[in-house]
């Protein structure tokens, strides 16, 4: 009933995850300045996508699974972005408390 992933493909995904882990640790020692945080998050997201697609079998499952994955990620972004908007734009007006 399900697509059965081969051991080889599991190992390949695992190897990629290890490489990405080392990449993220390595990147933290490289002076990237403001790009440091985005790079770390992009790598973490790629790792997540690999885990979700291959280890959690989202690649071969229902379209609904995809929707849930994407939606939950979007909702998280929604919460973070709209909250951050407030904190970032504080003090743009020269009025105390605005």
């Amino acid at each position, binding site marked *: 009933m399900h697509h059965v992933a081969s051991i080889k493909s599991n190992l390949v995904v695992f190897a990629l995850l290890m490489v990405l882990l080392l990449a993220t640790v390595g990147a933290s020692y490289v002076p990237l300045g403001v790009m440091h945080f985005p790079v770390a998050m992009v790598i973490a997201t790629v790792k997540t996508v690999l885990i979700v697609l291959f280890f959690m079998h989202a690649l071969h499952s229902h379209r*609904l699974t995809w929707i849930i994955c994407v*939606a*939950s990620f979007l*909702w998280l972004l*929604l*919460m973070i972005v*709209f*909250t951050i*908007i*407030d*904190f*970032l*734009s*504080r*003090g*743009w*007006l020269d*009025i105390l*408390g*605005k």
Partner: protein
Amino acid sequence: MSAVAVEPRESVAVEENYLSDHTVKSWLLTTDHKRIGILYLISVTLFFLVGGAAASMMRFELMTPKGDLLGSPDVYNRLFTTHGVVMIFFFLVPSIPAVLGNFLIPLMIGARDLAFPILNLMSWYVYIIGGSIAIYILMFGGVDTGWTFYTPFSTMYSNTMVVHAAIAVFITGFSSILTGLNFIVTIHTMRAPGMSWFRLPLFVWAHYATSLIMVLGTPVLAIAVALIAVERGFGIGIFNPNLGGDPVLFQHLFWFYSHPAVYIMILPGMGVISEIIPCFARRPIFGYRFIAASSLAIAVIGFVVWGHHMFVSGQSMYAGMVFSMLSFLVAVPSAIKVFNWTSTMYKGSIRFDTPMLYALGFIGLFTIGGLTGMMLSTLAVDIHVHDTYFVVAHFHYIMVGGAVMAYLGGIHFWWPKITGRMYSELLGKLSALTVFIGFNLTFFPQFVLGYLGMPRRYFEYASEFQVLNVMSTAGASILAAGYALPLFYLLLSLRQPPTAGKNPWGATGLEWQVDSPPTTHNFDFTPRIDRAPYAYSPVAIEGFDGYSDHGSH
């Protein structure tokens, strides 16, 4: 669990239904969605009485400008907190979904039960555990922070049982998550053959949208109150500005759930109204797809308007502008619904039975509540009326005039299905009218009070506000009578034999084709659906006497 267990299905007598087993054990260990609905019905009614008692005491206190009845402002603070916490977390949020939704969704989509019956029972137990803690708090000290638990008052200054309250809310949230998760899975996987998405009753669509909010919003509330409990319990700084924290962050996390929670309360009510209106207007619903899609739109847009609670809380003005715009946007799908209900009634053969009276009341009151909401989402106006009785009146028009009216309308509409009994139509109409009049007398004066500048959550007030406050209290007494009336005649109806018949209203939904009350397994055979819902025509009114058993084919 008796001798019947070994019998095949055919021999089950006609009178056998989901209520037949009377043992306490059969109720406490049931996994039947209908029985769990009844368990919720009883529990939310009890909490409604608790919350209502708190409201009545506040109203009596407010009859005079001086604080004389309750003796101290502390008592008053505990009362409005109790009223808010109990009514929102323990009555409104579970009311329609957990009572009517539990009972009806499997019947409406042609399923034998929800996808996870044991999880469903668990959600009730979780609710009862959270509720017991709430009752414990009530008896041994109370909370005085308001239902919003704003820091730093809740974490640093309040001397009441805030940690207990946070735990109660945290636990109860999981009951809501479990219900929502169950509904979504059920609606996706358990539909009968032929029950395509656009043949689903709008009640089911509304619950689908509600469940999305429950699943995606509630966990954030859980974290917000958990942080409050940790900050207060350990005396460390999480939201304390002196220790690097930010109190407005708590408001962000809190309202990320608690504004969508308003839609958890109102969306199921809209679902109920979408069932009642076409039935009593004998017309197919107007704009089915628009109503269905607007439920989802409300759920989605409702997630990005939360900042309108924080216009004067020190939120940046630019964020305020974004949230203000988005708040206006959420009025569009709400208005689509109101216009479609109105259009459904156009040229219909309208019958003014009790459920219809409640539904009509809902439309009017919800419209007033919604339009005043537009006033509040206007940045400049909000600064004038923020934290006044104008806000109190606005959200009571939505939650009491909207959600509670819809809940009562739904209870009256499906009472014959739930219990197999009809109630006194005369008393029913009387209750709908009493609630409508009492409600308006209670809350309309509060719009005026708020606009004149009377702040909310105050124990005493300036004497020029007294006339309007007395009006409001008088209205509350009428409202209380209106709520007590159904409790009386609905319970009384249980003394009669179950003679309501399968379909006393001549309605077209699948739930009306099974017995009243339904058998434990809902359907004798798997139903097949071959038409769109709401196939009403004015002709069907012929020979409709309100009690006979109409076409179950």
